[in-house]
């Protein structure tokens, strides 16, 4: 421990509140300090979590739309038997890019993005921890996504499926660069996701407002915490596996080559050790969204807070113990497989606990049903079907019958769209007033829900039956004698409704953004801290850092709620608190806007893309990467670097 004498402690006292003029002065100074830079360079230098978070969300939805168009193309192709709208090669590229984009460029990033925007506001902080890393991670995500999009547009997209199994994706069976683009897309998105995960953990553990002890953490923040830990422990596996793949393809290593002592199944172990937790990385934030929405629209503290929080944590742990259920058909030893059957069934228990807690909350509250709430109810209906088909798949004999059929396609779309996309769209409707200061059109939102709900079930329910009838996934067409035509046509009809629903959503969001009714600070009378500041929040988030007095921060707030003072407003000073009890510990200065993270991301991108083509990309880019990183961390000037150092030392000496 440092030897600094007794630790300084915060002082509680009574103080006359600032008058209106002083509040205005404080507001102006904080606005100057936490400014969001303008101009092209300024635009690229932004580090505040609201702007970066909104860009992240918008970009992820951009990829969602692109991948959705690919899905629509597949439904056109499969609508009738013996169709030649798409050729087999293009179809392979399309389903691979659709899955890859939805999983790596939409589902995981959009959930983390929501965390980037909401978590600092929910815990009463002025920015996310490590804001420049946040900007860097966004640009890496953007560039990685654009790389994959470009390969699709120039007919050179990966075509070995979203999980890119070897040996198909290896050097022998996929010559050319398609698989390399896939593997390098992994590197981009995982580096970015890992960086965000570290930022979120640090923000949640160290930047909470005083009083927000861990057992008062909003459930959405709990879910982002668990998600972040799952990212930290699972994504290294996929980085490892995709690096092996790149090396096998680029420099002739033999990790997956059985002829030279490698092993093809190794890929599946590494990929699914990441891949199954990934499903929960997508699903767990949705649980947090649902808890937030249910609490608000029942106007009651949620039933079973502790059970809900602990279920999320349990899900986080169990998510790491089920990966082999993706590999039941690979001929692994039976005894081992039985364990994974058991684990896969056990993981439905914490989810069940949560669903019963929510039902209890709805039961004893007087729920209102605006659009966000309808999406939550839609989640219940769809996700429970997906969860049940998941339990059936955990049974090995059954799994072997339907393995790689449309039954599996139906199952994971019920789980992912029902479990994540419906809550997410509900969440967007719910937080839209906070993010933009405008209300969405609720009637249109409800219409949006019903169109999506009906469209979704029409599209995906028939796929269960198609799976039973033996229709394999990933076939680009089928002969009419198979008798799969009617159900496929029905599914494609449902897809039309899904497209209409998507258009309605975009229309509602865009129209509301431009001309929606102006939103109050807390239009839903919600309980979490983000609703305790203006809509949209000012650049500094909170004029006074609040002190949290209960689990439902805004509902439990006393009339003369206490606040924190003594944080400088002339520099980006923030309060750092303790992990468990959020007691004030010290203050630190957050870095301001900087172009270096953008430059570093450009150089990193050049390295990642260059290394698809030649190993020399590494030595060539080492120096530029080092230069940009050093530029990023180099202190601007000693005064700015620690403007308060001398003052606080003097203060301590004076007290002593």
């Amino acid at each position, binding site marked *: 421990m440092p030897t600094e004498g007794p630790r300084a402690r915060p002082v509680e006292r009574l103080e006359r509140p600032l008058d209106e003029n002083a509040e205005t002065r404080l507001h102006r100074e904080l606005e100057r300090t936490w400014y969001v830079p303008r101009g092209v360079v300024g635009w690229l230098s932004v580090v505040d979590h609201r702007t970066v978070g909104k860009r992240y969300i918008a970009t992820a939805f951009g990829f969602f739309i692109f991948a959705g168009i690919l899905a629509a193309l597949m439904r056109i192709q499969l609508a009738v038997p013996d169709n030649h709208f798409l050729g087999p090669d293009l179809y392979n590229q399309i389903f691979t890019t659709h899955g890859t984009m939805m999983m790596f460029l939409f589902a995981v990033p959009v959930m983390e993005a929501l965390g980037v925007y909401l978590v600092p506001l929910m815990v009463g902080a002025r920015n996310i921890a490590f804001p420049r890393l946040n900007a860097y991670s966004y640009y890496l995500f953007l560039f990685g996504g654009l790389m994959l999009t470009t390969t699709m547009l120039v007919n050179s997209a990966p075509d070995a499926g979203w999980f890119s199994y070897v040996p198909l994706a290896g050097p022998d069976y996929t010559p050319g660069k398609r698989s390399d683009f896939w593997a390098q897309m992994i590197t981009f998105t995982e580096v970015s996701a890992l960086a965000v995960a570290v930022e979120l953990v640090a923000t949640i553990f160290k930047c909470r407002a005083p009083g927000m002890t861990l057992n008062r953490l909003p459930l959405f923040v709990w879910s982002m915490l668990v998600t972040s830990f799952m990212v930290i422990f699972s994504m290294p596996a996929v980085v490892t596996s995709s690096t092996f793949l790149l090396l096998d393809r680029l420099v002739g290593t033999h990790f997956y080559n059985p002829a030279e002592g490698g092993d093809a199944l190794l890929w599946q172990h590494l990929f699914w050790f990441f891949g199954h937790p990934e499903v929960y990385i997508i699903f767990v934030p949705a649980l947090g969204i649902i808890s937030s929405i249910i609490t608000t629209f029942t106007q009651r503290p949620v039933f079973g807070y502790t059970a809900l929080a602990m279920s999320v944590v349990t899900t986080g742990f169990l998510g790491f113990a089920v990966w082999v259920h993706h590999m039941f058909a690979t001929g692994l030893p039976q005894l081992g497989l039985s364990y994974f059957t058991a684990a896969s069934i056990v993981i439905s228990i914490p989810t069940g606990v949560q669903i019963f807690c929510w039902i209890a909350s709805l039961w004893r509250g007087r729920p209102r049903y605006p659009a966000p709430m309808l999406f939550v109810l839609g989640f219940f209906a769809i996700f429970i079907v997906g969860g049940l088909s998941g339990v059936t798949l955990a049974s090995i004999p059954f799994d072997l019958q339907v393995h790689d059929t449309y039954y599996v396609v139906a199952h994971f779309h019920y789980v992912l769209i029902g479990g994540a996309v419906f809550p997410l769209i509900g969440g967007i409707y719910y937080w839209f007033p906070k993010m933009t200061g405008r209300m969405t059109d609720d009637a249109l939102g409800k219409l949006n829900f019903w169109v999506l709900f009906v469209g979704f079930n029409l599209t995906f329910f028939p796929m269960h039956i198609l799976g039973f009838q033996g229709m394999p996934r990933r076939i680009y067409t089928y002969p009419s004698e198979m008798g799969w035509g009617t159900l496929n046509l029905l599914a494609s009809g449902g897809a039309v409704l899904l497209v209409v629903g998507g258009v309605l959503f975009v229309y509602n969001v865009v129209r509301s953004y431009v001309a929606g009714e102006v939103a109050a600070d807390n239009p839903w009378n919600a309980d979490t801290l983000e609703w305790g500041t203006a809509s949209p929040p000012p650049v500094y988030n909170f004029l006074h850092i609040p002190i949290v007095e209960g689990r439902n921060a805004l509902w439990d707030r006393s009339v003369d709620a*206490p606040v924190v003072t003594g944080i400088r407003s002339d520099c980006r000073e923030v309060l750092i608190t303790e992990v468990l009890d959020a007691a004030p510990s010290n203050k630190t200065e957050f870095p301001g806007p900087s172009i270096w993270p953008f430059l570093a991301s450009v150089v990193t991108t050049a390295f990642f893309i260059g290394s698809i083509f030649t190993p020399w990309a590494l030595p060539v880019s080492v120096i530029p990467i080092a230069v940009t990183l050093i530029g990023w961390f180099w202190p601007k000037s000693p005064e700015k670097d620690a403007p308060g150092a001398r003052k606080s030392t003097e203060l301590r000496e004076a007290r002593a």
Partner: protein
Amino acid sequence: MSAQRRVLDVSMLPDTGDFGHRGLVWWGTVGFMVIEGSMFVMVLIVYFYLRLKVAEWPPSLPNPDVGVGTVNLLLVLVSLIPNALAKKAAEEQQLSRTRLWIAVLTCIGVANVILRAFEYPALNCRWDDNAYASITWLLLSLHTIHIVTDVVDSAVLVVLVFTSPMTRRRFIDVSENSLYWYFIVAWWVPIYLVVYWAPRWL
């Protein structure tokens, strides 16, 4: 509204962050240590997984020579002393001792990197010989990337502690850098054993 309201005045708290887990930087450092540690674990598991796939180990290749690697291991262990002293000096905000020990640490780090260059020929295989060779090269290289990164980081810190006025934040940086070096040293022990001795023992 009452005339007075309760406030929590935090102006007395240290305002340039803090050492260890009280500060924010520590959490970033530890976060990345956990991520990179998970990668090391993954790669080590793959090593033993691949071992199970073949009858002899290393498959039709000579064992690596242990000489250079062992010298480097000893040197890395010796670096723990200046590392601990640099961390202590930084946390006590002792400028001259911080300067001395971070400089010594960086010099040893540079020597580690130079020795590392001689470890590759001592592996007695090329990365594309077979899966054993691939995983061995990868293990060594993964660790090399970490050593090089931290040596560059330490070198930048050396420049900063000698040229710019020292702030408390800079001392925190030195302390965090030492923490990361501990991490790198701690991983070298199992990786050294696996790279050089597992082929003999398995």
